[in-house]
């Protein structure tokens, strides 16, 4: 493999933003027919590297060679023409257009001068089929969940006959099935000689799919390794620069089944809570100090349920009791008043406030809860920001940094900080660890676990079943927007849950 000439050869790449040296004389190369993983903590510079390669950011210095020729481009359009196809980290598609257009726009089939809509939909359906995704190509993209959008973005990227395919955290909200579907496609592209750049914080996936790794730390190159020749622990060490112990510490600590023992009423009781057109009526109890995990496939209705519990959507039947009292949570604000916080899976459209600083984003919910006139004193704001920046290791550790300039993972941490700051009694976390690096993920899991121990109830949704199992006292399995099982997490295995998800309660 190494005997070949590299298809991408980036040397001495530097990019700096005001106050941050995002990339510092980094070298990076890719060979045809290999899957190359770019590894590093949140904010290490992975996405910046990708944006340098695709012309989104002009580089300050260094050179980029594609197929042995210097690559001079000024934007993604030209990168595409040069044969580089990219899925950017945050799903960057046009939510107001149809799924078909999002896949085909730029190379749409035509009849004469006009777009041939029928052919376009047919072709899109074919591509979606290749990913085993059964959605209507004519439907509006924005009506689908983030995971589906992510798959659509992937569909768009792999359909081009590209020399280089770049996937920046493509699997962050996909479930196991979807991931294996994606890997099948990646392998077949690899066979065709495409060079694939793969970024993920899931080490299993990296080890499963990639041939070679490049590790970045703080914008600097740590080294390039063959996947087979580096141990996980070594890799993590290289990424983080120090050992981490917490990772194993939390693993599979036996969970006391709180719900069975407790004499008390459950803190949250949902009785037949449902909403027409989105989720069938569900019963759900969450006790104080209990972590309830929601498991299910894409579109199984986990997010929908979370939204009903948190007042983000209004239920149209059923009842919700908080601490024994029936409440109608018509808005998230009322939920917040009952100390229920909801961290949305869609951090870009429902999470962070892009143009505000880290500090403002962290104090926002707390401030909204206190009302306009009881402004949190500046000193207190600074304390809050500083403590969460430290606790969650947000980088850069600058409370005045504008959130949209943070790396994806750090944005997620800021969002989490916002919800922790309101000291909720029920915290609903929808994909809270999406895009978060190994170290931080472990920290967050530990944090959730500690908070629960101190009496907070948590509803935890994650595409990563291991994570759900590791954290939850109880697991609710959803399928086709119905609750199909409610199991206590003692010695449950991923396999068992998968069977439940696949076949429902009948098994």
């Amino acid at each position, binding site marked *: 493999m190494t005997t070949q000439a590299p298809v991408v050869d980036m040397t001495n790449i530097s990019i700096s933003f005001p106050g941050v040296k995002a990339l510092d004389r980094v070298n990076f190369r890719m060979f045809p027919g290999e899957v190359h993983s770019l590894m590093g903590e949140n904010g290490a510079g992975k996405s910046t590297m990708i944006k340098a390669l695709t012309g989104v950011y002009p580089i300050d210095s260094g050179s980029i060679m594609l197929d042995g020729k210097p690559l001079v481009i000024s934007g993604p359009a030209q990168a595409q023409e040069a044969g580089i196809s990219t899925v950017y980290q945050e799903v960057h598609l046009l939510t107001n257009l149809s799924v078909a257009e999002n896949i085909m726009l730029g190379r749409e089939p035509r009849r004469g001068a006009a777009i041939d809509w029928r052919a376009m939909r047919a072709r899109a359906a074919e591509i979606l089929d290749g990913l085993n995704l059964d959605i209507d190509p004519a439907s509006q993209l924005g009506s689908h969940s983030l995971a589906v959008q992510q798959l659509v973005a992937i569909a768009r990227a792999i359909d081009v006959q590209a020399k280089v395919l770049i996937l920046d955290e493509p699997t962050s909200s996909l479930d196991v099935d979807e991931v294996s579907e994606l890997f099948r496609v990646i392998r077949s592209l690899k066979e065709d000689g495409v060079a694939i750049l793969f970024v993920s914080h899931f080490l299993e996936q990296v080890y499963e799919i990639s041939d070679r790794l490049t590790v970045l730390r703080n914008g600097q190159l740590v080294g390039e390794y063959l996947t087979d020749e580096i141990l996980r622990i070594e890799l993590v060490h290289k990424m983080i620069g120090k050992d981490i112990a917490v990772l194993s510490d939390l693993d599979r600590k036996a969970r006391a089944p709180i719900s069975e023992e407790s004499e008390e009423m459950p803190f949250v009781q949902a009785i037949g809570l449902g909403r027409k057109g989105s989720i069938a009526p569900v019963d759900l109890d969450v006790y104080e100090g209990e972590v309830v995990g929601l498991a299910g496939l894409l579109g199984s209705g986990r997010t929908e349920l979370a939204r009903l519990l948190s007042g983000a959507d209004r239920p149209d039947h059923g009842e919700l009791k908080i601490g024994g009292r029936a409440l109608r949570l018509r808005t998230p604000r009322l939920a917040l008043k009952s100390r229920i916080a909801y961290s949305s899976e869609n951090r870009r459209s429902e999470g962070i*406030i892009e143009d505000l600083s880290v500090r403002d984003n962290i104090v926002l919910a707390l401030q909204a809860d206190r009302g306009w006139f009881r402004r949190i004193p500046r000193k207190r704001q600074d304390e809050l920001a500083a403590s969460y920046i430290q606790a969650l290791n947000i980088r850069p550790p600058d409370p005045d940094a504008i959130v949209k300039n943070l790396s994806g993972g750090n944005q997620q941490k800021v969002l989490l900080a916002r919800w922790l700051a309101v000291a909720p009694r029920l915290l609903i976390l929808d994909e809270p660890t999406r895009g978060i690096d190994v170290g931080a993920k472990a920290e967050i899991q530990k944090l959730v676990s500690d908070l629960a121990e101190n009496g907070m109830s948590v509803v935890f949704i994650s595409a990563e079943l291991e994570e759900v199992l590791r954290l939850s006292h109880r697991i609710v399995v959803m399928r086709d927007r119905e609750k199909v099982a409610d199991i206590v997490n003692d010695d449950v295995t991923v396999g068992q849950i998968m069977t439940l998800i696949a076949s429902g309660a009948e098994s």
Partner: protein
Amino acid sequence: MNPTVSKALKHRLFWPIVTLLGLLVLNVAVYPSFFSIRLQDGHLFGSLIDILRNGAPTLLVALGMTLVIATRGIDLSVGAVVAISGALACSIIAGSSDPNSPTTVLAAVGISIMLALVLGAWNGFLVSVIGIQPIIATLILMTAGRGLAMLITEGQIVTINSAPYKVIGGGYWLALPASIVIALGMFALAALLTRKTALGLLIESVGINPQASRIAGVRSRSIIWMVYIFSGLCAGIAGLMISSNVTAADANNAGLWIEMDAILAVVIGGTSLAGGRYSLGGTLIGAAIIQTLTTTVYTVGIAPEITLVFKALVVIIVCLLQSPALQTRLGSLRRRPVTTSTGGVLS
């Protein structure tokens, strides 16, 4: 480069201030004693004072507009509200037996301001409760409101003779024209309200991402409602000021196109019409630029035929100077990431 100089250069109000100074210098060049301010009967007089006084209504309206724009809205009805409040106050005073009694004037002012608040609340209701796009919601009042003002005055100019009322737009407090004191007072109030309470943060957050703000528990509806009420209040006071300045209410022409001037002031001051971050200080400078521009046209003696061309050039120059894109494209060697004006996350 000297660090303080380079810091000043980077300040986002640097270029607007330079433009303002440039215009003032142009005036001095044509008319050397432009800057002179004299004290006459304990009142300050001079061109600069005139600029401030005549710019006061625009500044007021622009203040309200700034907050509305920060929530991603726009208020086209301010001109109509200006006309209505002036018309109402003058009609009440003209109809009263004693136009010179302070109680009559206070009542007239009070009633007009109440009406302005109601009109603002009406806009807020259409935008935040019914969910009509701001430009159309306020267009309704823009059209009907001027009719309402004319209904009050029956299309005539209502001239009044009331010394206490005259103070608002033409009188003096502490040597300064009262209108300047009122406008700066409202400015301070707005600054205080948004800085010392959490309102500023919440307004910005609603303007940047209403959906995410809702999830975070922000009462977007009341906030939007409130900014329109504030804008109504500002326009109402401006209306009193304008009518008081000429001791007459002209329902047809009072506040005509003031919404454009106000929006222009806001935007020149660096606030984006896309909502979010706003700058009251910028609005202050913006309003000053617009009024200075008008005065400059008179002082320099620009022919009415080419006044608009001149204004267009100044507007475009100040905006280009401010444009970070131009600054990177010209001189500076430092390269900047490609971002589009619509912004977005670059993760």
